[in-house]
């Protein structure tokens, strides 16, 4: 969108009809979004002039879509209704919010109990004729992709609402998705798509450096942000997430300085100190495996320097002895082809031509394609051969199978009411099953066809 290297500042000459002072305040609040704000302002035109019926603003998460729009509308004091479609789960709530924001409580109260689109448009027109728009009214819909799941016609109506209510009105749709995924079957009025590009690395650096800690120098914080971006930029460009991570890890970064072990200018030392922490953060906080609170606690304690505790919660499931073997058997049944069972589990399996047996290609690797369903009989047969002791097929074994299903470690593929020969699938990951088999001293890799 930026054709010129220097974005034009928001001046009154370019955007007449707005006070210079307000434009300046807007520009101050919108770092690195001058081009987009200017573009939007010039599309909006002077307050009393008509604008496009619908503008579709799309861009990645945290690229400032809602922020720019809201700052513009608030600072310039234009009549608007900002609605998050995640909050308004029904169309009725949405109508109420729009009428409340644009015409006040009286208008919202006149909505019937289950308002149809027709009611909404009728009431809007009624109030519009009472209070004609002196300035363009704006309806801002955040997370507009959720509109697709609401009433079938809602999106088509909103897009051409200007025409339907005959008002000076502009609908702004904000979304992370592209317009192509919105278009209804028979099409509708096409809105103007406006792209908010992602922040560049330099811009991210600039914005993140803004919220520095008052007791440390700006340079220190800037170098911290530099390190943070160095690690996380390849994975995450979400400004909000980066900001959260920055706030969370800053005390750790400053520790050497506060303890007097290093000076602020000792960037290399500080970097060595923080880097492993940030890498750890990527595997924990970033994945939401631990909450921010837990993470802070972990940082404070930090006595045992052992390997990272198995972070995934799944590795800590405690199971009965036979359940573990049942699960192992289920895993083997899911990932090994049935024809290889003879080779793995029968003592005197006769001659199998090795070349023929080993001939396999990657395409059929079950660890790529996913688990296959297997019948109960096969599961039990494998189970008996992997358990050392003799086990009787008692009710307790069967009930353990169904509790594995309840725990969602197995899934039942066949229909629930099919009682004879039910089919299952193993739904655990490779890491999990390896951990389980280690606890019972069973080398599962030796029994997996894919790893032969």
């Amino acid at each position, binding site marked *: 969108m930026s054709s010129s290297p220097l974005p034009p500042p928001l001046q009154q000459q370019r955007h007449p009809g707005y006070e210079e002072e307000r434009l300046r305040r807007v520009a101050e609040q919108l770092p690195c979004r001058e081009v987009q704000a200017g573009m939007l302002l010039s599309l909006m035109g002077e307050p009393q002039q008509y604008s496009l019926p619908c503008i579709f603003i799309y861009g990645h998460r945290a690229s400032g879509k809602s922020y720019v729009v809201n700052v513009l509308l608030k600072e310039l004091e234009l009549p608007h209704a900002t609605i998050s479609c995640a909050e308004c789960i029904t169309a009725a709530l949405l109508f109420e919010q729009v009428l409340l924001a644009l015409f006040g409580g009286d208008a919202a109260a006149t909505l019937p109990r289950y308002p149809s689109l027709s009611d909404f448009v009728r009431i809007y027109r009624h109030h519009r004729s009472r209070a004609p728009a002196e300035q363009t009214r704006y309806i801002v819909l955040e997370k507009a992709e959720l509109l697709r799941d609401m009433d079938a016609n809602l999106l088509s109506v909103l897009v051409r609402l200007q025409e*339907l209510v005959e008002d000076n009105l502009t609908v702004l749709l904000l979304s*992370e998705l592209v317009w192509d995924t919105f278009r209804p079957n028979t099409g509708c009025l096409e809105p103007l798509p406006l792209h908010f590009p992602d922040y560049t690395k330099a811009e991210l650096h600039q914005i993140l450096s803004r919220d520095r800690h008052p007791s440390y120098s700006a340079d220190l914080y800037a170098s911290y942000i530099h390190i943070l971006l160095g690690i996380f930029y*390849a994975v995450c460009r979400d400004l909000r997430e980066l900001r959260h991570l920055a706030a969370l890890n800053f005390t750790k970064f400053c520790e050497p300085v506060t303890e007097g072990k290093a000076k602020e200018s000792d960037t290399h030392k500080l970097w060595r100190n923080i880097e492993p922490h940030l890498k750890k953060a990527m595997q924990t906080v970033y994945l939401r495996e631990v909450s921010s609170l837990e993470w802070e606690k972990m940082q404070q304690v930090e006595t045992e320097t052992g390997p990272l505790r198995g972070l995934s919660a799944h590795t800590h499931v405690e199971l009965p002895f036979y359940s573990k073997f049942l699960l192992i058997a289920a895993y083997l049944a899911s990932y090994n082809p049935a024809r290889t069972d003879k080779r793995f589990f029968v003592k005197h399996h006769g001659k199998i031509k090795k070349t023929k047996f080993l001939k396999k290609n990657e395409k059929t690797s079950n660890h790529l394609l996913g688990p296959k369903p297997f019948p109960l009989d096969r599961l039990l047969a494998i189970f008996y051969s992997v358990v050392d002791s003799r086990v009787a097929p008692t009710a307790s074994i069967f009930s353990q199978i169904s509790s594995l299903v309840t725990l969602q470690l197995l899934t039942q593929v066949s229909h629930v009411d099919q009682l004879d020969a039910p089919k299952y699938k193993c739904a655990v990951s490779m890491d999990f099953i390896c951990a389980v088999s280690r606890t019972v001293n069973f080398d599962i890799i030796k029994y997996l066809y894919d790893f032969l």
Partner: protein
Amino acid sequence: MSKRKAKGASKPIGECISQLQKCLRERLCHNRIPSQLEASEAQHKHLLGLLQRTANNGESNSVLIIGPRGSGKTALLKCVLRDLLQEKEVQKNLLQVHLNGLLQTDDRIALKEITRQLNLENVVGDKVFGSFAENLVFLLEALKKGDRSTTRPVLFVLDEFDLFAHHKNQTLLYNLLDVSQSAQAPVAVVGLTCRLDVLELLEKRVKSRFSHRQIHLLSTLSFTQYLEQVASQLSLPDDFPDREFALDWNSSMRRFCEDKSVEGILQRHFNSSKDFCSLHMLLMLCLSRISTVNPTIKPADILEASRLCFSDAKSNMLHGLSILELCLVIAMKHLNDVYEGEPFNFQMVHNEFKKFLQRKSSSVYNFEQPVVMKAFEHLQQLELIRPVDGSSAKTQREYQLMNLALDSSQIIEALHKYPQCPTDIKQWGMSAFG
């Protein structure tokens, strides 16, 4: 613009620009009815004649206006209505009911709306009707007792006509068309739709009551006409407050439209779509750049505007992906090439990515599987990959089958534009096989 400032009589430039914006914005954004429609003269005459006969002679009619979106169906109807209402007699007599398939989503709502628009709420009061038909007939009957001894004609306009065909039993359509067939009250039913197969949607009993009069609005615009349209859309009317400014502007717009580069851009737009909506959007983008600093539309403006209009949204989104996500997209592209568009799952993509990393033996992009999974899920949220229909929720996330909703040309374009794209990744993306 020093020449302009020298003339004391004319208004200041800022005010002129403001007036200009107001005038043109109303035309481009608000779809103000044009003074006349050049392209659809015959259709206009046809429809006007039809409605006049209903309004003046009490003849019942039904007609469908069919044309793709943005072909000027509503504009045609509005023009006709404006011309029709110029007659005093008609203005006094004719009642209009405007229904929209998007708003009146079932027949009950539609009937309520009809009652409201005919101002018959008081007449109906608390009456209970046995059937839809009874209600409608009552409404029309009520009109007979108007101020004149004869019945007032009613014009029903059904926008998005095809949606009414989805109502239960098509009761509304059946009754309206039935009234228009029988010699009850004079009624004209005008349907507007973009579906060419709309008649197929009608039930037999409804279809047989329809007059089968159709007005097709298929754009036969040639490029020269299209250019004239552009010029007329941009020119200022004669009643513009500042005559001199208007003349200046109009001549500059004429020059603008004759410019070779502008013509090229417009030709490109013309080839992709002839409808007025997309043209209005392009011109609106140009118009929004007008200010006192930049008082006329220059060829550079339209170039920029058309670049915005034609920019591919998905490539734009690819531009903002992180390196890891981009790597996954490339891996998917390779899988698509190798397996000829078969769906893939996360494990396959990750495997492909790991193969690339092994070749490079660089550990820069060595991420844990959950981190990669999070990137994969982000792609799914962005709907750049879509789960295959019918793959049940029972399968694990890693093995859910996906389809790539991107074209390989989009990926290549994104790779070219990607800021600071590492060379090895670029090469990997460009190579035909991973």
